[in-house]
């Protein structure tokens, strides 16, 4: 018998994470307390000057964090921060009359409709340094690998989570919408449940 090895969380910096103050929604002052989970600092104070080569945190297939350092090669940034396209934007239709636009090629009785993507409120999202889950990062699960993993990006199916380690479950927030109102659900809960498995399905992993 040997005791399970429980590695301690490595501290990447000697600096103590201290609370800091910020102003949100133009006038509201807020004290932000940074938290360190599995070596990742959440709600950390942003750098005074934004650095395009600032490291960011990705997630491995099993959900363990991995720091990515962007590189500048031949004038182009490689492994840069992820772009989320329009996954977290809201589509709204703007209606313009002739009086609004006064376009030279518009009929005075016409109404022009334009689709506009509205950015989400990133007041609190910007404090999360970990890559966000989007549908393009879904994987396929099942025997035939034909079932999308929605809403989860991590962990992948058949991942192995070991005792004492911290893993991040990530999901696409917009997947969880209210059926009636169509609005994104405000709160969620994560569950871990046992699954009864057949003898043939039992994993005989290296011990």
């Amino acid at each position, binding site marked *: 018998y040997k005791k399970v090895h429980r590695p301690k969380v490595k501290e990447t910096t000697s600096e103590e994470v201290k609370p800091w103050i910020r102003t949100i929604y133009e006038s509201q002052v807020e004290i932000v307390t940074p938290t360190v989970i599995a070596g990742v600092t959440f709600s950390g104070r942003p750098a005074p000057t934004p650095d395009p080569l600032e490291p960011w945190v990705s997630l491995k297939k099993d959900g363990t964090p991995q720091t990515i350092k962007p590189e500048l090669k031949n004038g182009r940034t490689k492994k840069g921060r992820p772009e989320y396209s329009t996954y977290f934007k809201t589509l709204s239709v703007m209606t313009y009359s002739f009086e609004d636009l006064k376009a030279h090629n518009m009929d005075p009785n016409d109404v022009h409709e334009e689709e506009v993507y509205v950015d989400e409120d990133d007041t609190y999202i910007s404090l999360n340094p970990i890559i966000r889950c989007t549908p393009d990062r879904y994987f396929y699960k099942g025997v035939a690998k034909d079932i999308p993993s929605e809403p989860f990006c991590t962990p992948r199916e058949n*991942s192995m989570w070991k005792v004492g380690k911290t893993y991040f479950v990530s999901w696409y927030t917009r997947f969880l919408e209210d059926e009636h109102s169509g609005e994104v659900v405000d709160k969620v809960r994560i569950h871990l449940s046992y699954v009864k498995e057949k003898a043939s399905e039992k*994993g005989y992993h290296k011990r």
Partner: protein
Amino acid sequence: DIPATFFSSEWVKNADGIYPIEIDEDWLQGQYERRVVVSVQPFNVPDDEFNPLLNGVLLYIMMGSKVGKTTKEEWALIDAGISDEKWYYVAITIPTIVVVVVVFLYFFLHVNGRYRDFSDVTKATLGKKHRVLGKISDMKRFKKMKNHKYDELPSFKKPSKQ
């Protein structure tokens, strides 16, 4: 309660889209590994209507690998003068026994060399190797076989020069 659920987080903000989970040894219930499903329950779905397998991800939780390297505890024991030297005795004893047996066997064979006679065995073996087959026509197997005599093949007659 959701059946077979052993961990449920508090209600968290969906906008975060991320939740850290540290694996507890108690969840294994004494087994080495267990198959589990991770699921996310929206606030508007009640417990009795929620099915974890609907959009869940199946994975394993397991004890983890054992570290076989010299650990801090082992160093502490060595410093305290407590050492486990069983492996050292085994590593020395086995080759020593092999060497002693080989040396004994060599002298035994050397001393008893003059009492050994394998000539009858070697003669029989050599006799088998140098067996004379004899004529084919004398062999029982080929006695009835009619072997055609060799006939000269027709040859091309070169026309004489005119």
